[in-house]
């Protein structure tokens, strides 16, 4: 039994071809939303290449999603999926980022960087992924708590609590560094 060749034949007769209308719809959304999603991904991962991978992986997942996604709800749904997809990678990314931060502290500062410029960013990166997503949506995308809750699929109370914890942690880190 030649399964390899039978699989190839299956592909050749269109058996395992993706549904074209859905592909076209996603391709259109990819074109229009890519830049903003990569920026959101960068806040989550602190790395542009990883953010790009995350967006691409998210679109692959969105194709297979059983949820019917509408155009108007897509940006929120995509961001929620990014947070979920990225969750398993965050642990590794966080370790790498912590190491990079430690290395930066050990070496002399880059003269091209203004003093104090990266402390806030480093502090954001020290937040847990969910809080980082909330900070990005609140302060970069100017979303209200209601919109953030809808985007991340969480209750408004959870968002309020997590946002408050994030700010508390940022104050703690930045206050410590200033002193």
């Amino acid at each position, binding site marked *: 039994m030649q399964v390899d060749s039978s699989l190839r034949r299956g592909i050749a007769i269109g058996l*395992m071809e993706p549904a074209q209308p859905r592909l076209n719809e996603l391709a259109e959304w990819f074109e229009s939303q890519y830049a903003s999603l990569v920026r959101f991904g960068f806040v989550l991962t602190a790395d542009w290449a990883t953010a790009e991978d995350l967006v691409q992986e998210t679109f692959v997942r969105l194709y297979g999603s059983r949820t019917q996604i509408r155009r108007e709800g897509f940006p929120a749904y995509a961001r929620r999926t990014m947070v979920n997809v990225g969750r398993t990678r965050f642990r590794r990314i966080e370790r790498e980022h912590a190491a990079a931060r430690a290395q930066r502290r050990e070496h002399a500062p880059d003269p091209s960087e203004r003093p104090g410029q990266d402390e806030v960013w480093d502090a954001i990166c020290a937040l847990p992924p969910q809080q980082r997503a909330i900070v990005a949506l609140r302060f970069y995308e100017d979303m209200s708590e209601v919109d953030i809750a809808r985007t991340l699929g969480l209750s408004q109370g959870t968002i309020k609590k997590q946002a408050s914890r994030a700010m508390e942690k940022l104050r703690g880190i930045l206050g410590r560094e200033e002193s």
Partner: protein
Amino acid sequence: MRLEDRIKTALERKLSTPPATRGSWDRVEQGIRRRIRRRTAFTGAAVAIAVAGGALATPRILNWSPDLRPATAPFAVALASKISIEGVPTALAINERTNRVYVASSGRRVVTVIDGTTDQVIATINLPEPKPRTEPPFESQAYSLLGEIVAMHADNVVFVAGFDDIYRINAADNTVRPLNLDIIGGQLAGLAVDQDLGIFYFTWGRDIVAMESDGTVLWRVDSGTRAVGLAVDEVLHRVFALAERGPLIALDGITGREVGSSKRDYDAHPLVPMGVDEKRHRVYFGEISDRIHVVDGSTLGHIETIEDIHANGLHIGLGILLVSSDTREGFSEGVLSGYELGQRRPAQRLALPSRAERSGDAVVAGSGLPALASNPNTGKIYLVSPGTGEVFVVTV
């Protein structure tokens, strides 16, 4: 400057310089095609087998998905070959990417590596002896049991579990590392992998643990009851744990958060065979009293019970529910039964001579076929036969 303003400034500055390269839709499309091929490998194979074999039986719909045309084919299973294994083979796993079959043997505590292309043994990996025990109630043989083994495809890593010890095998060089776990009491009862997430799960006592392929613990939760088996839905990313004489519990595979439990209790035994049909999100598992239960993995509602079959091993593969058992009349031989998913009637049964007198190996006796696995890329099913010390290779 206020903290809020500092955050805004930092984000705007950092995010003002996105990468010069644009994301590639082609890469996304390739990923989608790869995913479809992986999820529906058997669908294509089944059609091609039907075409090549000129099957004349009434076509039945298998694996319907709105994105795909229906595949229609009956199937038939046949014993292709037998492979002799060192020790008493009790568990096996397949790495679909490397096409290697890993067989755990109790007593001698070795893992045999089989090349899935030639079905020849290519390596034998020795595991350390278990620490000496004196405590009752178990005989020393129980501690030499290797009850479960899993392979992580992408990372090329194998985990094999003894009574209360787990070993990580780097399959690239076959080096063995024991996992240093804080296991106190109880038996390791279930191993499972979410290949999509690259997370390995196991359970002992009340605890369920999620681990990365390098052995880093992601989470560890107290399930509140003694779990005797585990299965994973790689689409929903849910881990199903079956409590001993209790309900089926569902956990979020990423966070470990419990998402629900069945209202019904089941009479499961340790190392209960479990499987998940990820297309229909149904969980299958055997019960002591010769029954297989089917539970909805989304709602945890009971769907049906298949009566009069004792599952020694259970596996969802090649689009079929595969159950290995033994003939109850004198336990003379093992039997492999295939059920069409979503159907109750047995589609095919295959008798396998698995009984032998092996007085020297007292760990496992009888004709039971306790473990089986399949490789969708080759269409082969592998079963361990402790009684004869072999691995059976079955084709569909």
